[in-house]
């Protein structure tokens, strides 16, 4: 391959157009809707000037060009309801406090992000247009690692890559637990969304211990043991004294979290990854029923991924290699392609951890159960070198990868994640799979999913892939996720988390009493509603 041609530039769409000076690219500040609805241009400009005085001119982004990286998102936004007005990036807690003071005065809404890579859920874009992104990426200190207790205290801008490099450089005997997009995302952002990884420490909020929060009025609060003077147990004991409040700062807009503590997994002496291959879509029920007792008893201790074939294929292959029609890919096309690459229709990845003796004792029990479910139980002996097996082996031992980002290319860069919770019961997961396929099929989308299996439930992660550059497709993806949320909701199945475009819709499903409680907390803590209005449906 040589340098890029003019055709390449054209192929790159908006970027190419901008480079060729066509001026065709829409600016995020085109039209008044992108400014906060209640602020006129003059007031906005005055607020921006004050913000510049706090953080320095380089760290306020309030023109179309510099706002572009904040506007990038793969989720559908057919009505342009998630366009930020700009961004401000503080470098310290004091600067955060000074920014909130200004925001209160101007009633300037601020959408807080840590690393802003909430991919599939809106990236850094706000729940409503006109919010200014409060970008905490510059606050990137690893404040404390306790080598004896295996605990970490970090700022919002620290990525899993930073932590990984740090543990390596200092030869510390701990593993990280990473989401599949570890290198470019943060433990703080991920944990506050109650995200997951794939080692025994995979439920991130479960492993969280202590936080520091700036409230809307500037008050600095430390949760748990952290507010005791000279405390040495902030990262050792979660619950503190009196009401436990950490939860209200997750998936919420009640404060700006400036420090987060969490636990690190001691590196086990031995680790053995497994893959169980099942050949039919309908096997989902058998897999879930076989897995449940092992996850409940913790004999299988990690967050297990049960990966659908289409999702796995999309990581490393492009849709055109299998299928060139707009309709959903037929099941047998997926099955055949998967088989050629050593994959089944469902590929379930778990691992055993401990010592060789412990693993040798557990392996036969697990093997028998999964073989009885009709699966082939595979290890490095059979699968070493297989791209997918190696990928999941890395995830289950806390290694960094971005390989799953390949799925974003399936249909031109658009992707939105629908993430309903299912109980760990075969029949219900089977029903969820059926319902999802029926709805996706009518829109011509593919059933591209991963089930993440916790102790007693599964996150059914349904990735709706579409062409973001085609407005008709974008509208279709938006309609599709709304129908999925609504129809799953009618069955009693609701999302564990959702994208900026459907936050209110999901909040409705959790009921009026729940919404009213959140509204009262919000009113008490942030009466001017400056912090991330609309987050999780909280105004």
């Amino acid at each position, binding site marked *: 391959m040589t340098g890029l041609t003019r055709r390449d530039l054209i192929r790159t769409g908006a970027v190419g157009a901008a480079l060729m000076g066509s001026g065709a690219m829409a600016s995020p500040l085109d039209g008044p809707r992108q400014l906060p609805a209640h602020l006129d241009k003059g007031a906005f400009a005055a607020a921006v000037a004050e913000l510049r005085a706090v*953080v320095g001119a*380089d760290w306020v982004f309030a023109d179309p060009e510099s706002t572009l990286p904040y506007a990038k998102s793969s989720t559908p936004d057919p009505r342009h309801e998630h366009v930020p007005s700009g961004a401000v990036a503080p470098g310290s807690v004091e600067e955060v406090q000074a920014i909130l003071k200004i925001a209160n005065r101007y009633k300037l809404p601020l959408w807080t992000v840590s690393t802003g890579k909430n*991919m599939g859920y809106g990236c850094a874009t706000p729940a409503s247009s006109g919010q200014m992104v409060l970008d905490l990426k510059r606050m990137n200190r690893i404040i404390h*690692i306790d080598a004896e207790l295996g605990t970490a205290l970090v700022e919002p801008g620290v990525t899993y890559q*930073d932590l990984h490099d*740090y543990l390596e450089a200092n030869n510390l005997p701990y593993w990280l637990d990473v989401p599949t997009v570890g290198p470019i995302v943060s433990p703080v952002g991920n944990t506050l969304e109650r995200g997951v990884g794939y080692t025994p420490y995979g439920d991130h909020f479960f492993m969280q211990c202590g936080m520091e929060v700036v409230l809307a009025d500037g008050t600095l609060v430390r949760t748990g043991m952290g507010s005791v003077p000279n405390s040495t147990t902030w990262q050792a004991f979660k619950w503190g004294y009196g009401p436990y409040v950490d939860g209200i700062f997750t998936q919420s807009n009640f404060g700006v979290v400036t420090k987060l503590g969490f636990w690190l997994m001691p590196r086990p002496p031995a680790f053995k990854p497994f893959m169980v291959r099942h050949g039919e879509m309908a096997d989902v029920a058998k897999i879930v029923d076989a897995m449940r007792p092992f996850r409940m008893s913790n004999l299988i201790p990690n967050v297990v991924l049960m990966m659908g074939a289409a999702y796995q294929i999309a990581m490393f292959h492009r849709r055109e290699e299998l299928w060139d029609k707009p309709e959903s890919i037929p099941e047998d096309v997926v099955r055949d392609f998967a088989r050629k690459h050593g994959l089944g229709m469902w590929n379930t990845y778990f691992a055993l951890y401990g010592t060789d003796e412990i693993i040798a004792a557990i392996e036969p029990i697990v093997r028998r159960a999964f073989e009885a479910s009709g699966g082939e139980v595979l290890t490095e002996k059979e699968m070493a070198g297989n791209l997918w097996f190696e990928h999941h082996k890395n995830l289950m031992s806390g290694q960094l990868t971005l*390989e799953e980002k390949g799925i974003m290319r399936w249909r031109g860069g658009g992707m939105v994640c629908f993430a309903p919770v299912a109980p760990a019961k075969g029949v219900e997961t089977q029903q969820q799979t059926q319902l999802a396929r029926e709805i996706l099929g009518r829109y011509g989308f593919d059933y591209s999913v991963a089930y993440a299996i916790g102790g007693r439930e599964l996150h059914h992660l349904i990735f709706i892939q579409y062409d973001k550059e085609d407005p008709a497709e974008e509208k279709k993806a938006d309609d599709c996720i709304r129908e999925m949320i609504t129809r799953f909701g009618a069955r009693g199945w609701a999302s564990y988390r959702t994208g900026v475009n459907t936050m209110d819709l999901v909040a409705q499903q959790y009921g009026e009493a729940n919404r009213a409680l959140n509204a009262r907390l919000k009113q008490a803590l942030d009466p001017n509603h400056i912090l991330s209005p609309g987050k999780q449906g909280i105004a």
Partner: protein
Amino acid sequence: MRWNAGRLRLAAATLAFGLTAGPQANAETPPPPPRAPAVVYAKTCGYCHGQHVAPVIRGRAIPTEMTTAIVRRGQRAMPAFRPTEISNAELGALAAWLKAAKADPKEHDQ
């Protein structure tokens, strides 16, 4: 262990301070030096590019303005990277490095 913040920034190869830190920026911690292009490539771009996930971009003499535009805007399936993640100075150096970089036969296309 308590880590000196300055040392730590180096150890963790963290980020992105511009030349003008704000008036109230942490006075005691000087901005870390920009990361070398090869480091930015290895710790960000190289996880996708050349790993079956995104096209090979080394050895193609990609124009510098093309790289900076794509990194800041994010092209289709690629996320955008902000100046708080990759500073303007780092991105400029990365684009120049990428334009001159030779292909690595160990990388895979797409």
